[in-house]
């Protein structure tokens, strides 16, 4: 019996199913594309992407998006941007290779930093480290956390002193070591002195001197004995001179030890001072304390987007694995295989944007910008991604050059007339409303080397005294208020440079000098008193140990020096007596 291979009667239902599928696609393609765009955009940026309307016109290759809202990945109730309308001219053929090539996008009605009702963050809320955006966000937050600048603690008018642990003072162990050295020197000198055996020599010389006093000039054996005694005394004198040199060296060493105790005490004073929570009264440190926390944020945000660009637009043509689409089954990883002289997976050849600044004002200002060469495979496209925007009070530009092994990301913007929100100045009881300010940002990330600058200039600042805080109505609060409230302009500049992992941050402002001078005037006396208190504490702990050691060292050296001097004097005296007696007996005649 032959079995038919095909089930021809099923062709009809299959065709019906196909038609139903096409019908569903026709009905729901826009919805599916809109939802997928929202999902992919949200996943990529780490912030909610919402689209009100999306229409695919595959016949013409047009995609129209209206009501695009992208939340800020960093701020909960703020949008990164909103766009009234985007019209994209899609290249249809690459879609068969699952590649999206957009020849041109025209975007109208862009608005930045608009408020929103719900929290637009996704990566920040869903647990850092989830997805590429989550990982980049976690990395940049960790990077920014290294710039924790201590606030002006003395602005509270109080100086706190941590407890002083005697075990951490260097004078005490140094004193103990010096005491031990003094004892050791004393023992060594005593041993050396004993080995000189001066007693028998001196006793013998004394006996010879007595005999010589009773001897006559013809008593040759006594004369000869006297001469030998003089020789022995001379040799003993030589030995004691050698010992004396040793004692001198040892004494100098002990004196150096005493001087070392003074140095150790000075170090302990410095250590004790470090335990004082004193404010830095230097102007640069004041600037950093006041504005560094705020200045880090723009750097962190720009770095976030630069690092995202590096992840999504890596240089080179090696296969790249990224997290696959979310589904009920495991997502797995999608591996892309770029090929030379082929189209990239994503390419936006050109985008023209127009946007409004001050959209709520009576005369909103219109700006225009152009983005070119945004691609997932820069090595295939062969040109860097570039963006430029200009307007009445705006100059902005960016270039992402990921063509070679070392990516270089550069961005710069100067925006004038932007009304910045008022903010609490950290560490001091002040609220600063910069008003309409000019903001400048320069950013260059060359491989792993960063150079960035952020500046705010305003000539119309307003200061408000913050009623909250523990020292708002303190003397310090009054002084700082008086110092800055008359300053009408604000000029803050933050610079970042060095290796990306550990760059140097320098912040300065025109307020630094004013606040630092006031602080120095008021707090100088308190600081001096606190320092004296700490010195007294060190002295109290150290003097008990150092005093006895110092006395012991002096005693040891005095004793050794006195002993040497005494023996030397006795030798000299005996030798002189013997020689005088010999000269008197011989009457100037030299014996052979």
């Amino acid at each position, binding site marked *: 019996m032959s*079995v*038919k*291979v*095909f*089930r021809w009667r*099923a*062709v009809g*239902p*299959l065709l019906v199913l196909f038609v139903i599928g096409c019908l569903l696609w026709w009905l729901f393609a826009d919805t599916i594309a809109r939802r997928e765009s929202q999902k992919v955009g949200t996943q990529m940026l780490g912030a909610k992407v919402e689209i009100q309307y999306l229409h695919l016109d595959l016949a013409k290759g047009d995609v129209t998006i209206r009501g695009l809202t992208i939340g800020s990945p960093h701020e909960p109730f703020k949008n990164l941007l909103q766009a009234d309308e985007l019209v994209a001219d899609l290249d249809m053929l690459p879609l*068969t*290779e*699952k*590649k999206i090539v957009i020849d041109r996008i025209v975007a109208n009605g862009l608005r930045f930093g608009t408020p929103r009702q719900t929290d637009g963050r996704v990566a920040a809320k869903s647990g850092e480290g989830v997805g590429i955006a989550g990982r980049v966000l976690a990395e940049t937050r960790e990077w920014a956390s290294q710039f924790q600048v201590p606030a002006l603690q003395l602005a509270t008018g109080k100086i706190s002193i941590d407890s002083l642990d005697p075990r951490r003072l260097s004078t005490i162990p140094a004193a103990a070591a010096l005491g031990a050295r003094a004892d050791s020197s004393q023992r060594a000198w005593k041993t050396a002195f004993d080995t000189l055996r001066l007693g028998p020599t001196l006793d013998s010389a004394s006996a010879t001197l007595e005999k010589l006093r009773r001897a006559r000039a013809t008593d040759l054996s006594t004369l000869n004995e006297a001469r030998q005694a003089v020789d022995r005394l001379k040799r003993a004198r030589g030995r004691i001179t050698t010992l004396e040199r040793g004692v001198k060296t040892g004494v100098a060493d002990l004196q150096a030890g005493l001087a070392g105790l003074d140095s150790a005490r000075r170090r302990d004073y410095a250590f004790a001072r470090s335990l004082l929570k004193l404010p830095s009264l230097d102007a640069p440190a004041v600037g950093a304390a006041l504005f560094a926390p705020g200045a880090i944020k723009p750097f962190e945000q720009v770095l976030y987007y630069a690092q995202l660009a590096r992840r999504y637009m890596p240089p080179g043509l090696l*296969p790249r*694995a990224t997290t*696959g*689409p979310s*589904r009920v*089954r*495991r*997502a*797995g*990883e*999608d*591996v*892309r*295989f*770029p*090929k030379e002289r*082929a189209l990239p997976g994503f390419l936006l050849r050109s985008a023209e944007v127009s946007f409004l600044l001050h959209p709520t004002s009576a005369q909103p200002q219109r700006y225009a910008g152009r983005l070119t060469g945004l691609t997932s495979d820069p090595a295939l496209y062969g040109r860097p991604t570039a963006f430029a925007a200009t307007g009445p009070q705006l100059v902005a530009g960016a270039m992402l050059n990921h063509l070679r092994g070392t990516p270089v990301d550069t961005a710069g913007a100067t925006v004038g007339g932007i009304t910045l929100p008022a903010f609490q100045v950290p560490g001091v009881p002040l609220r600063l409303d910069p008003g309409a300010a000019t903001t400048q940002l320069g950013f260059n990330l060359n491989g792993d080397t960063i150079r960035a600058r952020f500046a705010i200039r305003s000539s119309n600042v307003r200061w408000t005294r913050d009623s909250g805080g523990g020292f708002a109505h303190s003397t310090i609060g009054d002084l700082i208020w008086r110092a800055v409230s008359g300053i009408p302009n604000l000029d803050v500049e933050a610079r970042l440079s060095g290796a990306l992992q550990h760059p140097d941050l320098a912040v300065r402002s025109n307020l630094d000098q004013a606040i630092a001078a006031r602080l120095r005037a008021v707090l100088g006396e308190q600081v001096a008193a606190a320092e004296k208190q700490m010195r007294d504490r060190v002295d109290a702990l150290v003097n008990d140990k150092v005093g006895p050691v110092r006395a012991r060292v002096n005693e040891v050296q005095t004793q050794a020096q006195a002993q040497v001097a005494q023996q030397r004097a006795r030798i000299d005296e005996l030798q002189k007596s013997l020689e005088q007696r010999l000269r008197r007996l011989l009457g100037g005649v030299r014996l052979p």
Partner: protein
Amino acid sequence: MFTLIKLIQSLFGALHSEGTPGQLAAGIVLGSFLGLTPLINLHNAVIFAALVLLNVSFAGGLLGWAVFLPFGFLLDPLFDWIGHSLLLAPSLRGLWTSLYNTPVVPLTNFNNTVVLGSLVFALLFAVPLFFATRLAVIRYRATIGERVRQSKWYRAVMASKVYNVYKMFQP
């Protein structure tokens, strides 16, 4: 409950159909592809079309899908590992690069580790599954098949109207 009845109906419907053991086994193998690999993919449209158009047991296909679907979920880590090993093997890079840049092929999502790993697994598993299933059906029909057909509960299950839907695709 409806799914369970449908499954039992399809199982016994297939086992006692006039289709050959090979047709039933082929249907189960095609159904295993639907169960083992992520469903919404282009290759599964081809599998489904084959299941409908080829003279194999459609009920067997549904049975294979239902039976292997849980295994698909369970074995996803294995599929991920297989796919990862294959896609990132330096010796296969040229092949994948060519396929990735060939029209239509990327729409199959072959470059996803789970899709490729499960598809390769299903392909390798298809041959032993086919022969094992065919042998099992032959043994069933030769031993207890007739007794089951005469039983009351078999007739009760098959009396359900739902069964008629499947009769349309009966081989």
